[in-house]
C-alpha cells in the first residue's frame, strides 16, 4: 500500500499535506517551484496535454479559452444552477450539457470532476516526488455546507485521479483539528472560514476524555457561493465601469485583458490588507495607462455587502448550537480572504473576542486533512471527529411538500427509516424523491435523487416496504429498502439528479489514462513553452504601442532578433534552450519596457492634470 495524504481542494488554491512520522506534526508539501500553494487552474494545451497550477495560471492570460479557474463552483451542479455564475466567470458550458455540466476547454469538453481530478493528480505527483513513493489514498476536504451532489462530485474527482478517498472532511472541521492540535485548547470554538469561493461557519466542542480528544461539531452553516471571488468580481466590475467612462474602452468581461486586470486587482486587494492605500496602474490597448489610487476605506465600502452576507449563516449556526456569541471560548479564522482587515474587525466585534490567526489561513485546512488521514491510517488512537450533516434530508410527500427525516446538524453517520405501501391494487412501483434543504416545498429544496421502489402486485395497502436513508461519515446519502413481508433486501439504483453515474465514471477512468502520466521532461517543455508564449505576446503588444517608436533602431533590431530565435526554439522540444532564449529576450526588452512605462505614466498624469483644469 502506498502513502496517504490530506488534500485541500480549494476554489483558488489547492494544497497537499502529510503527518511527519518522526515529529507527529502535519506539514504541507511544496511543489516544483517551492511553494505549497497550487493554483486551482487547469489549462489544456493544443497538443492535448494538461497543465495545472502556476503554469496554467499564466496561460489564463494568453489562452483564456483553453484555461479554467474556480471550477469548484461548478462541482455537483446542473446547467440551470449556474446561469448566474456565467455572467461573472469565464466558464464556457457545452450547450449539450444535460444533468451534468460539461465545460469547453479548447476543442475538448470535460466535466467539473474531471477538471478537479487534474488538480488532484498534480498534487499526487507533488507528494510522490517528495516521498519517492506512490500515494494512493487521500482525505479530501470539502466546504461544510456542500450538499450531497457536491460531495459526490468531489469523491468522483478523487477516484478519477487514481486516489482512494478514505474520507471527505469538512474544511472548518479540518481547520479546528489542526488548530486544536497546535494550541491544545479546549472548549467551544467557532471556525469562520471564508475562502476563494465558499463560506462556512462551524461551531465545535473540543472535549478531553479518558480515551483522548473529541472534536464534536455542534452546528454548521454557510454559503457555497460566497468568497474572495465575489470581492474580485465587485472590484473588476467597478474598474471596468471606470475605464469605460474614462477611456471609452468596453472590453469583453472574459477576454485576455479582463484576466490581466483581474490579476492586477487581486494584487491591489492583497496590498490593501497590509497598507491603507495602493495605486492601480493598468496599461490599456490605446496606449494610455489607467491610474487610480485605492484607499482601504474605499475597498471596504465596496466589499461590505459580501462581508455582511456571511453574518446570517453565523447567527443561524449559533442559534442551532443554542449558544450566544459570548459563550464561545475561541474564534478561529480560516481561508485567505480572512486576511482582509474588515472581516477581522467584523468577526471580532460580533464575538467580542480577538480571533485566532496564528496558523497560516491558507495551510490550516490541508494540515487538518493530513491529521485526519493519519488517524484513518493508524486507526483512532487519541483523536476522534464527530461531524454533522449541514442540510436536512427530506422526502417529497403529497402536494409537493417535504417531510424532513434527518434534521440538519445531526451527527453523522445518521439514518432514518420510512415505511411505504401502495395506494391502489396491483401497483408495482412507488416513486420516491429525496431532497436536501430547509424549505418546506420540494421545488425549493435541492433534488438529490429519484427512484422507484419495485413492489410485487398485491391489494392496495398490503405491501410494507421499509426504506432506510443513511448519511455516511462523508455526508453522502445511501439508500436501502427491505420488503417487510418477505424480508427481502432490495438494492436501489439511485440515479443522482446532478452527477455522474457509474458508467460515466468508468468511461472517464478509461479516458483519463490517455492524460495520465506525462513524464517530467515533457511537462518541463510545456511549461517553458507557456512562458515563452507569454513573453512573446507581451513583446508583440509592446512593439505595437506608438511609443515604441522612441526605441533606437539598433535596440529594435536586437529585440526582433531575440524574438525570432525564441520563436524558433519554441518549435523544438529542448526546454533548456527555450528557457535560455526567454532570458535573452527578457534582457533585450528591458529598455523597451522602461520607455513604455515612463511615457505611459506621463500621459496618464498629464491626462489627469488636463481633466482637473
Amino acid at each position, binding site marked *: 500500500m502506498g502513502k496517504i495524504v490530506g488534500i485541500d481542494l480549494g476554489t483558488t488554491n489547492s494544497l497537499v499535506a502529510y503527518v511527519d512520522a518522526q515529529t507527529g506534526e502535519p506539514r504541507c508539501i511544496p511543489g516544483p517551484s517551492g511553494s505549497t500553494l497550487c493554483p486551482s487552474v487547469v489549462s489544456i494545451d493544443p497538443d492535448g496535454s494538461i497543465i495545472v497550477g502556476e503554469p496554467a495560471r499564466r496561460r489564463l492570460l494568453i489562452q483564456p479559452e483553453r484555461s479554467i479557474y474556480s471550477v469548484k463552483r461548478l462541482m455537483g451542479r446542473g446547467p440551470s444552477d449556474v446561469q448566474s455564475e456565467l455572467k461573472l466567470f469565464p466558464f464556457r458550458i457545452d450547450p449539450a450539457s444535460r444533468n451534468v455540466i460539461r465545460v469547453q476547454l479548447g476543442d475538448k469538453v470535460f466535466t467539473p470532476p474531471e477538471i478537479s481530478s487534474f488538480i488532484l493528480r498534480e498534487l499526487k505527483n507533488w507528494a510522490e516526488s517528495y516521498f519517492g513513493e506512490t500515494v494512493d489514498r487521500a482525505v479530501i476536504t470539502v466546504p461544510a455546507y456542500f450538499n450531497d451532489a457536491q460531495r459526490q462530485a468531489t469523491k468522483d474527482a478523487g477516484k478519477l485521479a487514481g486516489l482512494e478517498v478514505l474520507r471527505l472532511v469538512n474544511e472548518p472541521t479540518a481547520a479546528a483539528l489542526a488548530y486544536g492540535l497546535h494550541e491544545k485548547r479546549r472548549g467551544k470554538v467557532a471556525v469562520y472560514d471564508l475562502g476563494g469561493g465558499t463560506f462556512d461557519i462551524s461551531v465545535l466542542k473540543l472535549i478531553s*476524555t479518558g480515551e483522548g480528544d473529541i472534536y464534536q461539531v455542534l452546528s454548521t452553516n454557510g454559503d457555497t457561493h460566497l468568497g474572495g471571488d465575489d470581492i474580485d468580481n465587485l472590484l473588476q466590475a467597478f474598474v471596468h465601469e471606470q475605464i469605460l467612462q474614462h477611456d471609452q474602452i468596453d472590453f469583453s468581461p472574459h477576454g485576455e485583458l479582463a484576466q490581466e486586470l483581474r490579476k492586477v486587482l487581486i494584487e491591489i486587494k492583497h496590498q490593501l490588507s497590509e497598507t491603507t492605500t495602493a495605486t492601480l496602474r493598468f496599461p490599456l490597448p490605446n496606449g494610455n495607462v489607467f491610474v487610480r489610487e485605492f484607499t482601504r476605506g474605499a475597498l471596504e465600502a465596496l466589499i461590505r455587502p459580501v462581508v455582511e452576507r456571511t453574518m446570517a449563516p453565523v447567527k443561524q449556526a449559533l442559534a442551532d448550537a443554542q449558544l450566544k456569541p459570548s459563550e464561545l471560548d475561541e474564534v478561529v479564522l480560516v481561508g485567505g480572504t480572512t486576511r482582509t482587515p474588515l472581516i477581522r474587525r467584523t468577526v471580532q466585534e460580533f464575538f467580542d473576542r480577538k480571533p485566532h490567526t496564528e496558523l497560516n489561513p491558507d495551510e490550516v485546512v490541508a494540515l487538518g486533512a493530513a491529521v485526519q488521514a493519519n488517524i484513518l491510517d493508524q486507526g483512532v488512537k487519541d483523536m476522534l471527529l464527530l461531524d454533522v450533516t449541514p442540510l436536512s434530508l427530506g422526502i417529497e410527500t403529497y402536494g409537493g411538500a417535504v417531510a424532513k427525516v434527518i434534521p440538519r446538524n445531526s451527527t453523522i453517520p445518521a439514518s432514518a427509516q420510512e415505511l411505504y405501501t401502495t395506494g391502489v391494487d396491483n401497483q408495482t412501483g412507488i416513486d420516491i424523491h429525496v431532497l436536501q434543504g430547509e424549505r418546506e416545498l420540494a421545488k425549493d429544496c435541492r433534488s438529490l435523487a429519484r427512484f422507484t421502489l419495485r413492489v410485487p402486485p398485491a391489494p392496495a395497502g398490503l405491501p410494507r416496504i421499509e426504506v432506510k436513508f443513511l448519511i455516511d461519515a462523508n455526508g453522502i446519502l445511501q439508500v436501502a429498502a427491505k420488503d417487510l413481508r418477505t424480508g427481502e433486501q432490495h438494492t436501489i439504483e439511485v440515479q443522482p439528479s446532478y452527477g455522474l453515474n457509474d458508467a460515466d465514471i468508468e468511461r472517464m477512468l478509461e479516458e483519463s489514462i490517455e492524460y495520465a502520466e506525462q513524464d517530467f521532461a515533457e511537462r518541463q517543455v510545456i511549461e517553458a513553452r507557456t512562458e515563452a508564449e507569454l513573453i512573446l505576446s507581451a513583446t508583440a503588444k509592446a512593439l505595437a504601442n506608438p511609443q515604441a517608436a522612441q526605441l533606437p533602431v539598433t535596440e529594435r533590431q536586437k529585440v526582433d532578433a531575440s524574438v525570432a530565435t525564441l520563436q524558433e526554439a519554441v518549435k523544438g522540444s529542448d526546454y533548456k534552450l527555450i528557457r535560455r532564449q526567454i532570458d535573452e529576450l527578457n534582457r533585450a526588452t528591458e529598455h523597451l519596457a522602461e520607455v513604455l512605462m515612463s511615457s505611459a505614466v506621463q500621459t496618464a498624469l498629464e491626462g489627469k492634470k488636463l481633466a482637473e483644469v
Partner: protein
Amino acid sequence: MSTQLPITNPPLVCWNCHERTIGTHFCPGCGKLLQLPQGSDYFAMFELPRKLWIEMDALEQKFLQLSWKLHPDNFVSATEQEREISLKRSSELNDAYRTLRDPIARVEYLLAIEGMRKNGENKQQAPPELLEEVFELNESLDELREAKAEGSDTASLRQRLEAAEKSFGEKLNEVDGALQSKAQEWDDAIDAGANVADRGKIMAQLNELLNRRSYIRNLVVNVQKELL
C-alpha cells in the same frame, strides 16, 4: 436516582465466530464488532430503563464513550462486513442520542416503541377550548396577508397578532409543563411496577398532550412566519 431496571438483551450468535454471545458491542469470543441485537431500542443502547427523565451529562458521557468504539474511523482498514456493521451501529448510536437528548422526541419515541404511536406520526389535535381563539387568529392572519398583498397599513393587525403569538406561546409553555409532570408520572409508574392498563392510560395522556403541543406549536410557527 431510582433503581435501574435490569437490561436483558436477547442472546445472539456472533456473525464471525458463530459463538452464542451476550456481548453488547464486541464479541467476547473473537473481539469483532457485533450487530445490534434484534428488538434492541435506543434506551437499551444506552443501558437506560424506558423512563423519561434522563440525566443529560451521563447521556453525553455514554454517547462519547460509545462513539470511540463504534465510529467508522476505527474500521477503515477492516473487512467490508465490519465496515458495514460499524456504519450501521454508529448511525444508530447517533440517531439514538439525537432522539433521547430532545425531551419531545424522547416521549414520541417511547410511545412508538410501546406501540402507542406510529413512528414519525405527527397528529395535530385542536384543543376544543381553544377553537374560538384559533378561529380569530386565523382570521387575523388572513387579514394580514391581504393587507400585505394590497400594500396597506399593517401596524394594528401586527399588534393583534403579536398579542396572539404571546398568548399561544404561554399555552405552549403550559403544555410543556403538563408533559413534564405526566412524564414524571410515567417514571413513577415504572418504578412502582404499574400494570399494563395503568401504563396504557398514562401513555394515552402523553400522546394527547403531544398532539396538542404539535397543534399549538404549528400555530405559533405560522404566526411568527407572517410577522417576519
